[in-house]
């Protein structure tokens, strides 16, 4: 283990004790992303913050897939974008290779972006309509001078397309000539082009048909094993997450409420929000579905502009006690590798 990685593992603090033996690839500590709301045209002044991400801690080990789940607006995508520095985080550290991504200048950022790639949700809008597939995949190889020879680059593009289940001739097509599933495969091939270590899959399959989703998920799994990739798998689809992830983190209103190994979380969710989320997954059997009791969370998700005090979930929580509205619960380890931000479990 390199010194940098060792430091990253130790720096993650008591929270991550017991897992230092495995190589930690990326550590996120106290990540906050607040978007200011301004008023006034000529002299803009800040009136409030949208607290999209408000203090998130986690780490991902090499070769591991961490699922990040939660409902719309809980901050999962923002977390992913902060790691890519597509947003500049308000506070916190993102340590990768011993360097804090938040502190990098533009040149260093380009280096790190070769190692961290992203697969976006919408395969229709994430590919430039004016470029051929070959150009989209080959552009970083050419611009960064990784493969300067035209013929070799074409060969590499062909290989990447082939590896993602597309015919190499697709390099001469435009995105609009392809189906959604094919485009998403192009998105994956593009992400692979730079031989990254870490890929952020931001709702990578949720725009696809269910049958295509299964193919793409299987492809992601194969690629993970073949290229020893690490994934941050952002999704709202719990069944997909259960299939692919090693560990799962649950987010609610910018906070992480629970983090555990995949099976542990699905079988023994502790946080009342996680339990409700899991209970909402439909069972594909109408008879069984009918007999199942539904636990519905009361109320609406509060606004991230003015989140509730204390535990952000307390106004909707069935277990809430008086103290929940005052004190922000610690993210504590209740069982080995099982972390929960709740005082009542």
């Amino acid at each position, binding site marked *: 283990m390199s010194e940098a990685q060792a430091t990253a593992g130790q720096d993650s603090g008591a929270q991550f004790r017991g897992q230092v033996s495995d190589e930690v690839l990326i550590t996120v500590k106290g990540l906050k992303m607040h978007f200011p709301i301004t008023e006034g045209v000529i002299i*803009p002044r800040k009136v409030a913050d949208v607290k999209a991400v408000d203090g998130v801690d986690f780490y991902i080990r090499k070769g591991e897939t961490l699922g990040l789940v939660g409902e719309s607006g809980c901050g999962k995508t923002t977390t992913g974008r902060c790691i890519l520095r597509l947003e500049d985080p308000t506070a916190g550290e993102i340590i990768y290779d011993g360097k804090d991504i938040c502190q990098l200048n*533009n040149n260093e950022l380009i280096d790190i*972006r070769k190692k961290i790639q992203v697969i976006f949700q919408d395969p229709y*809008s*994430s590919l*430039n*309509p004016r470029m051929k597939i070959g150009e989209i995949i080959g552009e*970083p190889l050419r611009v960064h001078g990784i493969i300067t020879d035209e013929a070799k680059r074409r060969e590499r593009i062909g290989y990447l397309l082939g590896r993602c289940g597309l015919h190499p001739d697709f390099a001469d097509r435009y995105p609009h000539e392809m189906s959604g599933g094919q485009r998403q495969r192009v*998105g994956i091939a593009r992400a692979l082009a730079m031989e990254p270590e870490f890929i952020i899959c931001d709702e990578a399959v949720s725009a696809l048909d269910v049958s295509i989703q299964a193919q793409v998920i299987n492809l992601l799994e194969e690629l993970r094993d073949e290229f020893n990739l690490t994934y941050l798998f952002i999704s709202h689809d719990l069944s997909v997450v259960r299939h692919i992830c090693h560990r799962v983190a649950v987010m609610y209103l910018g906070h992480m409420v629970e983090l555990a190994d995949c099976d542990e979380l699905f079988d023994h969710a502790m946080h009342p929000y996680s339990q409700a989320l899991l209970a909402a997954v439909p069972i594909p059997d109408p008879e069984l579905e009918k007999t199942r009791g539904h636990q519905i969370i009361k109320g609406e998700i509060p606004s991230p502009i003015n989140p509730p005090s204390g535990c952000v979930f307390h106004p909707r929580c069935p277990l809430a006690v008086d103290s929940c509205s005052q004190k922000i619960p610690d993210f504590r380890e209740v069982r080995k590798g099982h972390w929960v931000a709740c005082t009542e479990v």
Partner: protein
Amino acid sequence: MGKYIFKRVLLMIPTLIGAAILVFLLLRMAPGDICAVRYLGSGLAIDESQIELCREQLGLNKPQIVQFFDFIWGYVVFDLGDSMWTGQPVTHEIAIRFELSLQIAIMATLVATIIAIPLGIISAVRQNTITDYVVRGFAIAGIAIPSFWLGLMIILGLLIVTQSWLGEPWMPPIEFKSIWEDPIHNMAQLIWPAVATGYRYSAVATRMTRSAMLEVLREDYVRTARAKGMVEKIVINRHALKNALLPVVTILALEFAFLMGGLVVTEQVFNLNGLGNLMVDGVERQDFAMTQNLVMLVVIIYVFINLLTDLAYAWLDPRIRYS
């Protein structure tokens, strides 16, 4: 593609016939004719038979329908007739002015493009900053300031500046010389009207570039480009700008067509003898032959520019394919 162009060119024929009917009727709806203008305007005592004779010579006493078919027939046999006022062939009168108008239109388009595209990009990239406000103010001013007034100010400014710097005032040359013949003389004369009209025209294009860029910069594929590790310059130029150019090209092309026939006032200010001037003279003198052919020329330019713009779309955007 070839088939598409052929179809489009064929479709121009009904458009042109429609325009021909319209211009023919509109011109003849106005009271009086060129003979009345020529003789009655002189203030001398003219007897009615002389005017009749003039009308006969110019073919104005023929039935309207015959005059119309003569007009159309002219296009079939490529003989547009003579100007009713000067007696010179219409094609000759247009030809000697066409070069000047075309040159100003091209130069103004260049000025506009050089101003509009960089400013539009900067304004979009630095949205809602001081830079953006300054660019937007500059653009709004361009739309608000009439180009003839700007022309007057340019001439005045030239006089004042040259007076104070060189000791004697300098004016752009009045006589037109072709750019092939005397490029310095030609530029010294035409650069000013090109700047005056180009600025106004850039204003519209700047705002269009800005709004198109703002839209494209929010697209996912721009974020993809950033995430791929592309430097900002490539993201802006290659990924965003190319996609934002489509509406800008449309605006530039339409303005170009407008410049070919619509520079009436600016030509007066700079004392240029272009197509705009010819049109004004033609209308004033009720020179039907001149005016209707000039209007048809402008119509043909518009129709062709439109076709070229549509073809440019296919070149700019691979999703657009004509068949």
